[in-house]
């Protein structure tokens, strides 16, 4: 028996396009081509398979009226009870701290402006990714270095009213800094006199009051000398044949604009930064990815569709909104729905002033009114025609 040619398989399978999702078509094509190499497939069999796929897909489609929102919320909320509360070290990179488990999931859903542990994974362009030196160099370049990081010792001399920093020679070398460079940065940014005495810097405040000196001292210590704002710790790691830079702290915009960086793959876990830099669709994908990562790491199996729905709901208005009273729930159309969630009285009182009208289109409103809810079997109505004469009602 002779099987059909790969081309026939391709044309036959592509007839499915538009009827079933692309991913299924793609998978079927791949699987059929693979099988056809090992054994002959007849045209009849292909038709049967295609029919089978069509049938399987149709029977798996959601029913209209299905309460997909509630199911999604339950599917993400229920495993929450099984998650850990602790912050553990990252499985891959032992040097970085990561928020995991329930706290991280809540953080994502809350759409916090800054995650409690911001992280970036920076992929480099081919030229830099293959060489350890170049990756290291880049890492050094972006790591934020403050005066305190290179100081061996700092003291405030109250008699002469100066702030003295003793610099650490080896650390300076590693960061490619010289005392004069540091001195000039301090001079330029803080507008003060700086005296250089070998590896000692003497900084004199403009006014000689004690409080002024103290203020100056803290400002000098935190003064950035080089690196990218926000990037506090950098680790270079070999991953799949290339060097990848992991950072603690995140500054998506500045990192992406650096020439060494592969913009297509570099990510941060700060969803708001992604929204600002790449837009709402990217933010939506970031929410999905972060949530999936968090759940998977805990070994919890949650269907992707649920997470996508939550992410889409959070992003539906064009900006990332929190799941809660300052976001999705607080902006509902229904007064009763808002009142029954949180801050009951304020919503009711304000509704009167604004002359709002609750159309009772949602779920809670109808539960409150004791009416059938517009979901599932409640979203359809049946009219019985009596006696087969096409009745009046």
């Amino acid at each position: 028996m002779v099987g059909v040619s790969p081309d026939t398989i391709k044309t036959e399978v592509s007839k499915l396009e538009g009827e079933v999702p692309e991913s299924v078509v793609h998978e079927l094509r791949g699987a059929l081509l693979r099988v056809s190499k090992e054994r002959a497939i007849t045209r009849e069999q292909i038709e049967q398979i295609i029919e089978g796929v069509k049938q399987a897909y149709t029977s798996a489609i959601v029913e209209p009226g299905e309460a997909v929102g509630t199911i999604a919320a339950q599917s993400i909320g229920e495993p929450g009870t099984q998650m850990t509360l602790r912050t553990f070290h990252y499985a891959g990179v032992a040097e970085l701290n990561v928020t995991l488990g329930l706290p991280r999931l809540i953080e994502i859903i809350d759409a916090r402006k800054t995650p409690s542990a911001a992280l970036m994974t920076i992929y480099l362009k081919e030229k830099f990714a293959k060489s350890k030196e170049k990756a290291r160099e880049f890492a050094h370049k972006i790591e934020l270095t403050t005066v305190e990081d290179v100081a061996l010792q700092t003291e405030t001399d109250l008699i002469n009213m100066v702030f003295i920093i003793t610099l650490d020679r080896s650390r300076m070398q590693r960061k490619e800094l010289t005392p004069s460079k540091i001195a000039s940065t301090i001079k330029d940014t803080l507008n003060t006199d700086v005296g250089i005495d070998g590896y000692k810097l003497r900084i004199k405040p403009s006014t000689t009051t004690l409080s002024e000196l103290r203020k100056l001292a803290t400002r000098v210590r935190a003064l950035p000398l080089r690196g990218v704002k926000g990037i506090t710790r950098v680790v270079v790691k070999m991953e799949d044949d290339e060097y990848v830079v992991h950072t603690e702290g995140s500054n998506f915009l500045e990192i992406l604009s650096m020439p060494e960086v592969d913009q297509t793959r570099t990510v941060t876990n700060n969803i708001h930064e992604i929204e600002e830099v790449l837009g709402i669709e990217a933010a939506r994908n970031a929410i999905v990815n972060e949530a999936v990562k968090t759940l998977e790491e805990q070994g919890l199996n949650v269907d992707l569709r649920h997470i996508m729905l939550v992410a889409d709901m959070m992003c539906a208005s064009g900006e990332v909104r929190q799941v809660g009273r300052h976001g999705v729930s607080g902006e509902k159309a229904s007064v009763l729905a808002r009142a029954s969630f949180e801050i009951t009285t304020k919503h009711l009182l304000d509704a009167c002033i604004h002359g709002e009208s609750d159309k009772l289109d949602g779920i809670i409103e109808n539960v409150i009114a004791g009416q059938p809810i517009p979901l599932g079997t409640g979203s359809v109505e049946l009219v019985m025609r009596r006696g087969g004469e096409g009745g009046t009602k």
Partner: protein
Amino acid sequence: MMRIPKLIDSIDFCLMSPEDTRKLSVTKIIAADTYDEDGYPIERGLMDTRLGVVDPGLRCRTCGARAGECPGHFGHIELTRPVIHVGYVETIYGCLRATCRNKKCGKILLSEQKLEEFRKQIEDAIKERRKWWEISTQIVRSAAAVEKCPHCGEKQLTIKFEKPTTFIEGKNRLTPSDVRERLENIKEEDLPLLGIDPKVAKPEWMVLTALPVPPVTVRPSITLESGVRSEDDLTHKLVDIIRINQRLAENIEAGAPHLIVEDLWELLQYHVTTYFDNGVSGIPPARHRSGRVLRTLAQRLRGKEGRFRGNLSGKRVDFSARTVVSPDPNISINEIGVPEYVARTLTIPVRVTEHNIEELRNVVRRGTDIYPGSNNVISSEGKRYDLRYADREELANKLEPGFIVERHLKDGDIVLFNRQPSLHRMSIMAHEVRVLPGRTFRLSLSVCPPYNADFDGDEMNVHVPQSEEAQAEASILMRVQEQILSPRFGGPIIGGIQDHITGAYLLTRKGTLLTREQAQQLLASVGKFFDLPKPAKRERGVEYWTGKQIFSMLLPKKLNITFKAKICKNCARCKEEECEIDAYVVIRDGQLQSGVVDARSYKALDRCEILDRIVKDYGTTVAREFLDDVTKLSIAAAVMFGFTTSIDDEDIPPEAKERISEVIEDAKDRVSKLIEVYNAGELEPLPGRSLRETLEMRIMEVLAESRDTAGSIAEKYLGLDNHAVIMARTGARGSMLNLTQMAACVGQQSVRGERLSRGYRKRTLPHYKHEDLGAEARGFISSSYKDGLNPLEFFFHAMGGREGLVDTAVRTAQSGYMQRRLINALQDLRVEYDGTVRDDRGAIIQFKYGEDGVDPARSDNGKAVNVEKIIERVIGG
């Protein structure tokens, strides 16, 4: 005839004007008292019978109805002086600041051009059905900053707001009358700019001149056992208001000094404020004589037990029961055992027809006390007969089509079964009733995972759907067998647990041979009749069957699957059918040809290959039957072969003990060496870590490794002939970690992911030296549970254990709130007929649900279509 119920189409919110209040009112309330000496309500008092009645026997003077039927009617109090409504102080403050202080002007303090711009914005917002009032915050903010009116040139004094209800302009205090006057001066066309809809609200209505008095039905008084009347908190508050209101009127009448009038006015404001909301900041809450804080209007609505969340979103229901649950291995997953006592109390209404009249007559005759009886009969006219008191014989004879009999619950009725916390939809499922002796609800062990139930005293609830429509919906949509696949991940959440797994393993493992008697005995336990296949072996005239043969009899015909069992050790090269631990499962045409049945095959929440395939290919009914049968068979097998575990399952030979203690001693040495290196300052820090952190990480690493080595030494002596090991390896219960902790070494205790470090200054316990970083001093337990922990180890173990308990408590609270927020945000979403997901306004959230329109519960573990399976089915494996 069934009444067509009225449906609420929409609810409009608006502000009540004083005229509305007076129009609504049936009487003006002037007396601060409630009842006279005879216990009769005082005319024009707070309990006036025109406001409705709550005491039995009295009739409402407004509508003439009795208590229970009269919905109640509002009265009102004429306030002597106006009073600010606390709920609107913020809005009032905004209005005052944004408008001109000049009485003749009263316009918003922005140029006409700017106002026009804002008007346009608001118009657009209304057109687009956005929340137009959100624009007003912006207007108020910019107008409040203006110092000179652009319309009349009047200089604007700053108005300060003092919580809760005081406004101060420059140095003068604005009385509510002043405020009201200002608000009256605001031009109607300016109102939308201030967030007020002129169609339903006037700003001056936010300052009250007449106060509605709610009907008595809203604030019923209760009579205590001693006969003392106790009034509702609202009544108390209203008494206060009327009293002060009167005193204020009298004082003004008598021409009392300004100061006294002012004070009384302020007191009236206080009482009205706390009447609305007794939780506003800035003033002490009003208290009852006993010192208890009063629960006034806002408190009634607010919070978890408030009207909204406590009574409107969730309601108490009839036809429900609650009791302890206990297991019954013999009932189906679709069933629930209901005690007869409960079955006699819960009823289902049945309409009498010609076909069931005789049966129902008997049911009525038996009455309330004899089991398959009934509790009530309702005649065609709607008259209700209570069978406890009625003449049952007479009633039974009177029965005719059209009557309704409320009969006891009986076998086969559909009820809803629920266990809190109801975290997902599988927390409420429909079961078929089995009336059983005893006093507990009985459920099949296989449905424990979805309910998360165990039998250490758990209680569960039963609800009886009353209408045929509800019963049909419940049995089609909510029946247990329809819920086998979880919508969370598209795999089974109902399946075998614990002994079901070990039993199946014992039966199907290699070398299980059964005589005809044994085989028949096992199959008989399933409760069905089977013809035994050909025996697998014949020895000295005795026929033997393998366990796999017996198990296969329950499998559906034509079932083909191949997978690796849980016990699989993931060898580098799989020997497939030749696997020496029989971990390669092959089922061909419904025959288990090789491999053992364990957790991978049908354990709930596991990968569940066999059950999963049966539900998806053969339907839920076949799956339910399979699960019911297989669990019974497994239990019978476990009983037949005998299965137990005890402390000697953790016995390991002395040489193993020796090797384990060597490993641990070695690890301790390495730890002390690390500490020496650290103290000498020679430790190489990991990038980005301090020396101390590096040391801790290295020590943890060494100790964890030693525990693992100790465990694997012990594991070598714990084979699959050991019952505890069978449970762990087949995935029935427990893990190898549990076993090695019992047999070899418990390992490091930790708090917050670090070794124990707190307790005393620089040490965990006074038994150690300061700064001792050694293994024992920081909570490493080298004993095994079986050997027992020494007192220090025991204490460390308790520290680690305590953290676990605290964690669980915190976690449940946090995840509960997260879920509430998720549900609230997403509950209005549904799939429409066009495949989109939309919210309650019809806004599209997703164009196609999940990007492929597939229901996760019907998907193949998340995938839309299992292509491989279809190809295999058509072409053959």
